[in-house]
């Protein structure tokens, strides 16, 4: 093909994409002279080149379009009809260009239909001059306009910056500073540089082994130059993400017309750059997500107005850099996901049982939309139901080492967050060892590395499931060695690589963590692609080949514990509420066959103690445990200690003292709502709750603590009283929260908990009505007094009664408490007193109401 023609095709293609983006903005702001000028100039450039190349058909068509644009520029009002017609014309131009590219000659055809329409509209205005002089400068007002830069505009800043200069001139100016290089050349450069990086790494490795090598200094230079070269080549491949967004305004506009909706597309951070290969790969997923937002997310104008929202919906697209990644957010202010429908669909498709779903938070349920064949739209529209599901979107993004996450708030919208590496060719990886082999784990998915078997980071097993306690969270573990069938792992030590995949966080136990290295990803052999655990291969600095772990692949090896919540900042409100309702419960048997349970967070450790080590002193069972004598208690007289072998016990510790509760067998750990439905009069039992469909006794740990140490705290039987009040329990100690919450619940109140004063204030902002606050006084950051003061000064919370829990009740503290608005003081360990105070305060509320 003629060189000139090829250049023309490339340039016209780019220009047309820009015109598309411009036109939609034009329709929204018909009086923006600057946009008008840009569009006119772009159409004009195409027309001019067509004439030069002798493409008569194109020339006639673009001339008619330019004519109309000229009229608008001169002040003719812009109608929706005119915009639609211009878009149709551009589509025709594109079609002609495509044929031109394929056949190297202009296809035959007739465009009189469009041309007549264009002319009719152009004539429809005031009797205008026959044609606008093509090289006429842009009207003055264009220059006067401030740069109200939006995404689409930023994406093509270069032409905009040339101001009023006619396009041809601008083109020449740019040409002096930049040249067109084919993508193949750049790709080849990239591959070569990747190889160079590898060789450099190998050389460094060799020199490292020979201390006094003459090569050291020149190699250091080579290394620096290589790094610079790598950076430079990477830079040539960088493109603004706006290039992938250019078509979106048009897509949204067409959707609006089809769906009868009113949607505005906001774009931010379009200038954020990323590797063009990655850019190409995210283009389709992004388009699909935007379509999805427009089709499923945004409501019809009628529904929006009914819901008290502005008539027109907004889809917000934003991009920014974060470390070596780019974060893209697609947010709509629509109706949010229909959790109920997703649940029903998940069950229908057999993805999860009702019981499984009951244990999941809304956030986890939302993620089902990424499952294959999932579409909750009752009717498949031609917009989103094109056979491209969300599963394809997620696959595409995960294939390039990215993640996609979603948050949805009913009634106020859905946000998709995509995190992708800036480049694919070279990534940072953690090299680990397991079963004598080395593996690379992409850094993107590694949160942290924890040394297991030291201090509190001990690997524990519940039946055969290994778990790790990590900052008050129970982290499900898998042994890489077992997942990869490299042998049995009997040691519960080594390193735990904490990995995040979507919403899942889990730990992979490895034997050693060696180092991090920039690795060049090589595709996997076709004979190995069936192995989900690996995503590729790479050559390390020492020349050996190692496999790259696919975090998604090994996550499949996790069983039911896979869905652990993250405690990252992206946890949204609804998820937080959900996780407050959900409690991890340790289910065990002791004495009777009926399962018993305690909140897992109360349990410090699960131990098995050799029966021979149990001593009897003064009629009490004791065992030496961590240099202390720990009393062992039985749940009831039915349960006995084993005569021989290992005796399982639950260890409860607080303030350096421990007590062991003797059990027969540990059954399971479950996540469930703790609703004590029937309170119990039996000492040691708070009541009964249905956990995973089985009636389970909730054991009152508080009953056993004073038996172990009489001064732990005094306890008398609590008086149950039913009232539908909601109580906010604030205490920085998870131990006391978990201890008191079931107690208050058993007395018939709804309980929500907060771990700090700040969290407590946040809880007031959620939808839940709070009738009463029970707060600890001594807390870090914001203490009980400060919380009370903050509540007093906030409208809406100032009237809520507060009961303070104090370790010591002094007259002075009571005086100060009254001043800030405490309604009552209860000693921290006086649980009966607390229930009585709650009862009294809620009675006051009742009277007031």
């Amino acid at each position, binding site marked *: 093909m003629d060189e000139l023609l090829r250049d023309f095709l490339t340039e016209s293609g780019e220009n047309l994409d820009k015109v598309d983006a411009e036109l939609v903005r034009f329709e929204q702001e018909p009086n923006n002279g600057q946009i008008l000028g840009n569009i006119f100039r772009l159409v004009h450039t195409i027309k001019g080149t067509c004439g030069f190349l002798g493409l008569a058909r194109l020339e006639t068509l673009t001339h008619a379009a330019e004519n109309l644009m000229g009229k608008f520029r001169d002040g003719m009002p812009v109608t929706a009809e005119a915009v639609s017609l211009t878009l149709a014309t551009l589509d025709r131009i594109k079609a002609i260009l495509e044929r031109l590219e394929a056949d190297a000659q202009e296809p035959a055809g007739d465009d009189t239909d469009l041309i007549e329409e264009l002319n009719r509209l152009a004539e429809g205005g005031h009797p205008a001059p026959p044609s606008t002089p093509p090289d006429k400068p842009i009207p003055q007002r264009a220059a006067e306009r401030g740069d109200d830069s939006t995404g689409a505009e930023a994406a093509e800043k270069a032409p905009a910056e040339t101001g009023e200069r006619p396009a041809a001139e601008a083109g020449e100016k740019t040409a002096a500073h930049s040249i067109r290089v084919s993508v193949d050349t750049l790709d080849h450069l990239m591959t070569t540089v990747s*190889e160079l990086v*590898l*060789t450099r790494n190998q050389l460094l490795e060799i020199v490292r082994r020979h201390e006094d090598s003459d090569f050291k200094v020149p190699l250091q230079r080579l290394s620096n130059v290589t790094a610079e070269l790598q950076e430079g080549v990477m830079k040539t491949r960088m493109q603004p993400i706006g290039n992938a967004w250019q078509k979106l305004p048009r897509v949204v506009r067409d959707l609006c017309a089809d769906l009868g909706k009113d949607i505005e597309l906001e774009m931010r951070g379009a200038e954020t750059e990323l590797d063009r290969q990655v850019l190409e790969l995210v283009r389709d997923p992004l388009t699909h997500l935007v379509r999805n937002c427009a089709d499923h997310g945004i409501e019809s104008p009628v529904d929006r107005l009914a819901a008290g929202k502005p008539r027109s919906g907004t889809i917000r697209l934003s991009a920014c850099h974060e470390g070596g990644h780019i974060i893209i957010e697609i947010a709509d202010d629509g109706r949010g996901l229909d959790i109920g429908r997703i649940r029903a669909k998940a069950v229908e498709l057999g993805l999860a049982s009702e019981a499984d779903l009951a244990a999941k938070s809304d956030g986890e349920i939302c993620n089902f939309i990424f499952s294959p064949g999932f579409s909750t739209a009752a009717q498949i529209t031609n917009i989103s139901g094109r056979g491209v599901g969300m599963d394809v979107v997620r696959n595409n993004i995960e294939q390039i080492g990215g993640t996609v996450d979603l948050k949805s708030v009913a009634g106020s919208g859905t946000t998709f967050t995509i995190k992708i590496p800036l480049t694919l060719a070279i990534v940072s990886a953690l090299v680990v060892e397991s*079963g004598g*082999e*080395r593996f690379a784990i992409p850094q993107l998915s590694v949160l942290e590395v924890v040394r297991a078997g030291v201090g509190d980071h001990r690997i524990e097993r519940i039946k055969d499931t290994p778990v790790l306690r990590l900052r008050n969270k129970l982290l499900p573990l898998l042994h890489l060695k077992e997942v*990869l*069938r*490299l042998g049995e792992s009997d040691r519960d030590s080594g390193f735990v690589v904490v990995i995040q995949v979507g919403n899942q966080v889990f730990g992979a136990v490895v034997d050693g963590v060696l180092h991090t290295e920039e690795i060049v990803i*090589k595709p996997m*052999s*076709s*004979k*190995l692609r069936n*192995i989900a*655990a*690996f995503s590729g*291969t790479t*050559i390390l600095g020492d*020349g*050996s*080949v*190692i*496999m790259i772990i696919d975090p998604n692949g090994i996550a499949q090896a996790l069983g039911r514990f896979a869905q652990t919540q993250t405690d990252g900042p992206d946890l949204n409100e609804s998820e937080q509420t959900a996780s407050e309702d959900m409690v991890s419960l340790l289910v065990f048997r002791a004495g009777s066959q009926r399962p018993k349970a305690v909140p897992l967070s109360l349990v410090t450790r699960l131990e098995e103690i050799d029966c021979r080590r149990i001593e009897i002193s003064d009629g009490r069972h004791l065992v030496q445990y961590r240099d202390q004598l720990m009393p062992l208690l039985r749940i009831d007289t039915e349960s006995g200690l084993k005569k021989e072998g290992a005796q399982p016990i639950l260890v409860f510790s607080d303030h350096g003292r421990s007590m062991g509760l003797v059990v027969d067998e540990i059954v399971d750990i479950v996540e469930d709502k703790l609703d004590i439905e029937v309170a119990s009069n039996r000492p040691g039992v708070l009541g009964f709750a249905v956990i995973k469909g089985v009636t389970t006794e909730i054991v009152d740990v508080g009953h056993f603590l004073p038996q172990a140490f009489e001064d732990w705290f005094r306890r008398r039987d609590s008086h149950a009283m039913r009232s539908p009040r909601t109580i906010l329990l604030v205490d920085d100690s998870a131990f006391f929260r978990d201890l008191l919450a079931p107690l208050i619940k058993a007395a018939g109140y709804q309980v929500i908990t907060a771990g700090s004063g700040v969290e407590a204030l946040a809880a007031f902002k959620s939808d839940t009505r709070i009738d009463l606050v029970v707060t600890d006084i001594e807390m870090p950051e914001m203490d009980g007094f400060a919380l009370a003061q903050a509540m007093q000064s906030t409208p809406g919370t100032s009237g809520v009664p507060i009961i303070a829990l104090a370790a010591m009740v002094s007259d002075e503290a009571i005086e100060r408490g009254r001043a800030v608005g405490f309604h009552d003081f209860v000693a921290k360990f006086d649980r009966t007193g607390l229930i009585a105070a709650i009862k009294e305060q809620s009675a006051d509320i009742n009277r007031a109401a």
Partner: protein
Amino acid sequence: MNDAAAKLTEYVTFTTAGQLFGLPIERVQDVFKPAHMTRVPLASPEISGVLNLRGRIVTAIDLGKRLDLPSRVDSTAAMAIGIESGSESFGLLVDAVGEVLKLSETDREPTPINLERKLARVAAGVFRLDGQLLVVLDVDRVLDLGAEPAAVAA
């Protein structure tokens, strides 16, 4: 006889489990001694591992295991025949590499019908040499690991 002599094919010969095999020389990229092989967990048993051969990643396939032949006693003695397929590199692990033989295509006889099924699938004919038989391999079929479900690890 003269016509036939014109159609000579060069075969790279090698032995595995005592059996002599041959591959047309144009399909053989190189012959090398595999070193620093990385085994791949979860891979099917005939894949011995992956290794770095001058910057290329080579997937090593054990011919003996591929054909269910008795395994070598001394695994370090293995040699590898380098093969390109598509854009990928493979190494066929064999016990020993022999000489290159020029053989006439007219002497190539069809694979005996009673040959063991797995071997028969990858054989492209047999030459009767002095004292032993040379089985010609069809490289593409040897590399087609998925062809027999039994060969794929569960």
